[in-house]
């Protein structure tokens, strides 16, 4: 089943009168069959069906615009050479 908003060439926020106008226009343009246009119009005029149609648009997770991350390394610079592998030596001299 095709997207009714696409068939009528309207956005998801279209009002009832916009749907009516778009239906007439779509009938004139004949990009889609009359049956398809009628089905799309009927779907968007009926709130429950329109809710179902809207459901099929993917949603988005809540998110913020990506920004650069700013973090500093507050550890003191260290070198492995200063840590002896023999620190825990268990061999008795």
């Amino acid at each position, binding site marked *: *089943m095709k997207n009714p908003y696409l068939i009528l060439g309207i*956005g*998801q*926020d*279209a*009002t009832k009168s916009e749907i009516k106008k778009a239906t007439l226009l779509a009938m004139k343009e004949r990009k889609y069959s009359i049956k398809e246009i009628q089905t799309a119009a009927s779907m968007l005029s009926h*709130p*429950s*069906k*329109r*809710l*179902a149609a*809207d*459901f*099929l*648009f*993917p*949603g*988005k*997770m*809540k*998110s*913020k*615009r*990506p*920004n*650069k*991350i700013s*973090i500093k*390394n507050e*550890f*003191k*610079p*260290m070198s*492995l050479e*200063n*840590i*002896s*592998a023999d*620190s*825990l*030596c*268990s*061999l*008795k*001299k």
Partner: protein
Amino acid sequence: MEVLGVIIVLGLIGYAIYINTSNYRYDIANNLLNKRDFHEAKGIFLEIYEKHKEAPISYAKCQLALIKAAPSNVRISFLKDIAARAKSLPRGVDQSAYSRVNDEAHIFFFEKKYDNIKASDSLVVLKTFLKEVENFKNKSLNTRFNKIKSGLKQKIGVLVFNQALQLEGKMNFEEANEKYSEAASLFKALSNKTSFENAVLRGNIVSLKLGSFTESNQLNFENGDSVIKDDYYFRLAHKYCFEKQFTRAQEIVENYLNDAHPGVTELKNYIDYQTLEADLQEVDVINEKVALLLSSKETQSNLVLELFNRTQALTSSTVFNEIREATGKLLPSLFNRLFTLRFNEGDFKGALNLICSYDQFWTKPELLKNAGVCAYNLFEAENLMFSDMKEFISIWLSSVFNDRVLINSLDKTAWDDAYSFTLIDSLGSSSKSLGRLPSNVNFGEIDEENISIGAAQRELLNRFELMLVAKQEQGLIEIESIDFYHSEKAAIENLIEAVDDKNFKPAPCLAKTHGLNEEIVEVLSSLYDETKDEGLLRCGVPYLESAKSSKVRSYAQALKLSEMVIERFKSGLSISKTQLNSNTAISALKTFNTLSIHTETRVINAFNNFSEEVRFKKSTRDNLAFYIDSFSSNSKCKSLYAKTLADYTVREVNDDKMSYLEALTLLGKAYGYVPNHQRLCQNMAFLIKALLFEYINEELRGVKKFKEILDSLKTNISEELKRECYILKEARDSIIEQFISSGNTQGLTLIMTGSYQLSASGRKFHEAFKYFDAFSGTKSDLGPTNNLFGLF
């Protein structure tokens, strides 16, 4: 006198012979041995060594006693003598008895020698001793020999280990490694776990010092000395740091080392510093990519993908909360971009995979919804394999049946200002489970302004179902996909109806894929415990798979058995315990009352749907009888069985296809099930009467069987059969009347009394009368015959 002289001479000669025999000599030596005069005894035993079969053994015992008494430097000569003689024992000597003495002598010798081992004894001395013990093939005293061997190996192991320590101290690592390995083998054979692990640990330390440590070396040690373990793990962590494998180094430090030690703290700080450095380098890369993304006008899918993957990887790998939080905040936006990219490109599978990679995606309504939308589009756009379809169908249903998903999606609708939405007939859970609702969502009645969310959900399901049917009609999907859809839909509907809580209610396939089924089954089981509503267990069956609940599993077995019984019953296949192959399931079915009753009803319906011809078939009747015999809920089936047999036998008897006796035999089985069935008892009474007449008239075949049946019935007669047997009383009275009216009262009397004067025919009358009386409840001294007795 001469005779006496001869006897005395012969006696003296005999005695002279006796005192020179080996037995006599042996007895003397044995007495000496008992008196601990070993040297004397030994001498005599040696004299008769070849002549008496016990002598070599006793001789060896003397030598053994002498070993025990002798100083340590002399013992060996006695021992050698015993050992040497063991190789060439005279014929007839009990070899095993000699071996026991030989073993005793050797173990005594070895034990004394072992006790005298000095701390200064060299490895060569100990190894030679061990070889000596191992070379001696004892046949007894295994425990003592093994104790010596183990003790020697332990001492050798310790010496080898100490040698290795010295070599390690002298930085001769390669030789030290060999020695540690040798010591480890010895300790392993002795199952000395601490010494074994210490040797292995030291070997690993030496390998680390040499730079020859490999990943195949043992990592986990439970029994070694903690000081050696700390040394080893520290060196290992140090090595990983040197190789810049900081994650591994960190694992070692966290899992095996105590950071109370300053060296460990220092190493830990170094690892933290380096890890943070590495993470920050990755953050720099991410920052560069973010800058690129923000500056480009068009969304670059490869860039978004790389950025998402890098950010996700860093978020899950970093140990620094600050980094995790910062990258975590970046993820939703990148996720949205990547998802939108894939979705808009028509890559619904890729978009769905992205959602599924999100940890517990079903807990986020917007993700669950998008997963459902992807699944819908995948079905619409592609020809799918059934295996893929199953998951997509399950995701779609889980999404649409979730009220929270629908409520959340209302946020995205811009046309709903004047409307409110009601959940009154929604498909998801009730008000209790949804928590706080948006202001435009309620549970009010549906009207033009208060729109039904349930209607929208049903519209979505309807659309999907129409699509499935259309695809199936086009030959693009198999009917099994549609069946699967309906089974998943029924399961989620039942689950939502059964359990009213806040938990997510997935369709079974999704639940099983993500391990959510275990909890669902548990909840259903505990609800069943409270309510005993079998519907709850039935609801859990589609979710069962590997879940543990024994109740749902048991119900599933019973349900399967029930289906199998019905299936076989309907198709006319024989039902037997072997074919059902499950005594466990049969007893399980008996415990579930509702299921049992339901099964019986279905069996009866199946039976009633058969034509009369099929109902009367032996196999059908046998199946019904098997059901009655095996399952507890069977009272209706019993009546049905009785009625069927009554109908069947009447038809067959009327058509002369069955004898009276065959009919009575068949009815007898049904009588066992329902002894008070009116029609059954009526027919049986008629058959008994008819058969008794056949018997009197000498027309009956199978007299023995007939009597067996009557005798059995007589002892177990039901009230109903008694009532129906009034016809037997009538028959009996009519026979008596005939006798009287024909004037043969004398004959009748003889029959009634069972006189010895009766002919064979008369005897049959007599026996028949006894049965008439038994079944009709009359007695021979009652009724019309009573008058007869008055006549005579």
